[in-house]
């Protein structure tokens, strides 16, 4: 369902020179497949997720999700596509502080063509074990709870692809497995393909498919 072909991405440095970040000949993920992408910090993992999500445009190459080649989309089309078909879980959760847990989930539904489905938002929060904390603002939730809200938000629009960028990195060790299980379980229940980025071997070791970015990315960077 996800196909990347000849992706190149570089950034312009302050001195004007180009810094290559990504040079990926091919990268594919099957429908409902759960895979993990490991790599060193600064190796381009987040940039790759941004390119897949349409947040950043590649300098060259094609990104195809299902039958849609999103690299041909306009920016507005890309935004809409991302809202409706791609879920994103951030390392730092990125919940909006002024909104309750329920509103954070509803917010993600606001940017699709359909009307926000409050019942589904509540159902998702119940599924992640936060049915009793829907009105709580992020500052009133524990770190683990915040990440669970972020997972519920990412699944709000029934995406076909979930991108998770180091989702356990900021969660205390006691809750890391809980968050990871939650993501994998909900993706399995909703037939969502999962691309999870991590640099933690313990996390990577739980997946059948583990891709090393250094192996698929021909640009040698990172620390």
């Amino acid at each position, binding site marked *: 369902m996800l196909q990347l072909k000849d992706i190149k991405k570089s950034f312009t440095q302050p001195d004007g020179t180009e810094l290559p970040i990504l040079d990926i000949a091919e990268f594919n993920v099957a429908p409902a497949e759960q895979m993990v992408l490991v790599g060193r910090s600064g190796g381009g993992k987040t940039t790759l997720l941004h390119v897949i999500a349409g947040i950043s445009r590649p300098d060259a190459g094609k990104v195809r999700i299902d039958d849609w080649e999103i690299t041909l989309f306009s920016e507005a089309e890309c935004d809409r596509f991302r809202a409706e078909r791609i879920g994103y879980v951030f390392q730092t959760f990125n919940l909006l502080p002024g909104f309750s847990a329920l509103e954070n989930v509803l*917010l993600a539904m606001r940017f699709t063509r359909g009307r926000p489905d409050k019942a589904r938002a509540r159902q998702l929060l119940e599924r992640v074990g936060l049915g009793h904390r829907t009105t709580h603002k992020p500052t009133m939730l524990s770190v683990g709870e915040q990440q669970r809200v972020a997972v519920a938000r990412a699944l709000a629009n029934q995406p076909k692809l979930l991108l998770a960028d180091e989702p356990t990195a900021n969660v205390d060790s006691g809750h890391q497995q809980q968050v990871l299980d939650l993501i994998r379980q909900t993706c399995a229940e909703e037939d969502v393909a999962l691309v999870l980025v991590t640099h933690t071997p313990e996390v990577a070791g739980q997946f059948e498919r583990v891709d090393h970015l250094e192996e698929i990315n021909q640009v040698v960077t990172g620390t």
Partner: protein
Amino acid sequence: MSLWKIAWRSIQQRALASTLTAVSMGLGVALVVAVLVVHTVVDRSFRRGGEGYDLIVGHKGGRLELVLNTVYYLSQPIGNIPESYRNDLLEGRVDPEILVETAIPICMGHSYRGFRVVGTVPELFEKLRYRDGQQYRFAQGENFKAENHFEGVIGATVARETRLKVGDRFKARHGVGEGAVDHAEEFTVVGILEHTGTPNDRALFVNMEGFFAIHSHASDGAGHDDEAHEQAVAGDRGEHHADDELAHDLHDHGPPSRSVTALLVCLDQSTPGITWRLEREINDGPVAQAVVPAGVIANLFEGIVGNVQLILLIMAVLIVVVAGLGVMVSIYNSMSDRRHEIAVMRALGASRLVVMLVILLESILLSLGGGLLGLLLGHGLIGALSPLILKHTGVAVGMLHFQTVELLLIPGLVILASAVGYLPALAAYRTDVARSLTSTP
């Protein structure tokens, strides 16, 4: 979840800054409301002075001076007209086809402790009306009688400031200001008018016969013969010099007929355009000039007071604009903190236009919220001050006294908010999502 709610949440998140911004906008709007109400009060109290009669007939000369002198008791009388002209009007000798219902004589030239003493007839308070057809009423006592030459009634302001009561006596002073001389004769206060909100509150009205009589006695001291002074005129060519000129006239040309400063004329309005016709005929004649007070007052108001009001309104609007700039600064300053939030919304699928719209809505909410606060504040103040305004001007304004022009505040504030919100909205539009997401929130 609507975009309005997203914008509202953002405002709530910065509650203190948002409140202060809205309050500054509210103060500006309250000032606009206050200026608009002041405009109404001044306009009404100004125009009210000339209500109750159709024409002022006086000496030929400046139209404005005649109105200022007769309606507002300001400035110097420009001269007198023969009292007999009153009968000419009433008996149809000026225009037989026009029915003059009333012609009230007004004589000026005297004062009492700075307030004008007006010689007139009792019919002034019986036949003329003020403020939308109201009849003059007496708070104390009653109207003076035609046969009692040394009776008078006083306006509410005069009563309050001079502490004259019914039964008290006062001496009219010849002229106004320095050099004025008290007459020996005393007038008795027989009535105190209720507050009218018109210039009449600031005047003393005495029987015209007594007014002529004190003129006559004052002139006795100058050594003129009694018969001539029995027929003395009041206020001839200016207040203070009236007697001197009168004496000069008497000396050179013999006794003049009695004359008055002005006539307040009411017409039978059953024939359309009759006021303008009589005005033209009087003005074409050699004796007097006629003015329609409403027209002159409107010109005066628009020409002088109206400009002051306009300047006040412009200043108030400028304050609102400055408050609008405050909204812009407040939102713009918050943008650096919110760049990450905006990037998160973009990552969730919000388009550039949507995040731009959220910022604009935030600006509109702050401005409209401030505007609503200003309206409440402005009208609350008006409500609180309304008894005071009524007491001093006679104009009744209540807390719910809204003006149509206030409706313009709503679209005006939306336009202002959109304009001042544009710059921060543009910053939101240009947010680099990838860079902002990777930066620390």
